[in-house]
């Protein structure tokens, strides 16, 4: 398996999540488990054709995995691995060493030598 580029993986996650229909599809799959485009069209206010197109884009980005099956009955499920890469990107932004080091400096300055 070729080593995926973490930046490209994270970029695909953020691009996918930027689109409201794809967010709805991912949310529905996360909340209710694997589903076909037909299943999703009964839960969401979007046509089955539009859902199929978004599912194909999500699958190309690795965010959902198609299960083997007859074309119309393919079930898709969320694939967590790309989310974990995006999370580590967010974690780097959220580490907040600036606040921690400011607290260290304050505690040293206020405690007795």
């Amino acid at each position, binding site marked *: 398996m070729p080593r995926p580029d973490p930046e490209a993986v994270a970029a695909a996650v953020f691009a996918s999540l930027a689109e409201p229909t794809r967010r709805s599809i991912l949310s529905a799959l996360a909340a209710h488990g694997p589903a076909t485009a037909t299943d999703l069209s009964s839960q969401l206010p979007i046509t089955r054709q539009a859902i199929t197109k978004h599912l194909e884009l999500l699958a190309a980005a690795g965010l959902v995995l198609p299960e083997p099956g007859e074309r119309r009955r393919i079930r898709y499920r969320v694939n967590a691995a790309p989310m974990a890469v995006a999370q580590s990107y967010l974690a780097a932004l959220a580490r907040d*060493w600036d606040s921690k080091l400011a607290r260290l400096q304050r505690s040293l300055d206020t405690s007795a*030598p």
Partner: protein
Amino acid sequence: MPIPDRIERTIDLAQPRQRVWEALTSAEGLGGWFGDRATVDLRPGGTAYVEWDQDEDSFKVALTIVVVEPPARFAWTWGIQGLPATDPRRTYVEFTLAPNGGGTRLTVVESGFAQVPDELLDTAYHGNVEGWRKELAELADYLDAAA
């Protein structure tokens, strides 16, 4: 949009290295500026637990201590925030204390955010998902049989 794999900060502190070292490596120190409470087994391979209060609850994080070189270098590894505790990826945090006049120039470097999660992308991960599906199926069978 590169993932910042390496975070680096430098801060000049008025206190000598020994005092900064104490603040970084003692339970009182780590439990003061870093968390709300801490315990520290200060040796390479030792574990420090840092606890944060959150509303009426608290959460605890384990740091695996890697380098103890008083008063110059202290390092640990810990998990990545937001990922499940079972995620094998950890970042490496290293503090370097350099004399700076009568005070200390403290540098902290945290690295490893852009690791590729092999364990999540290879077959072991898919095996895990399949394993869950199988276990859930077995649970369903068990409950059916018990009904």
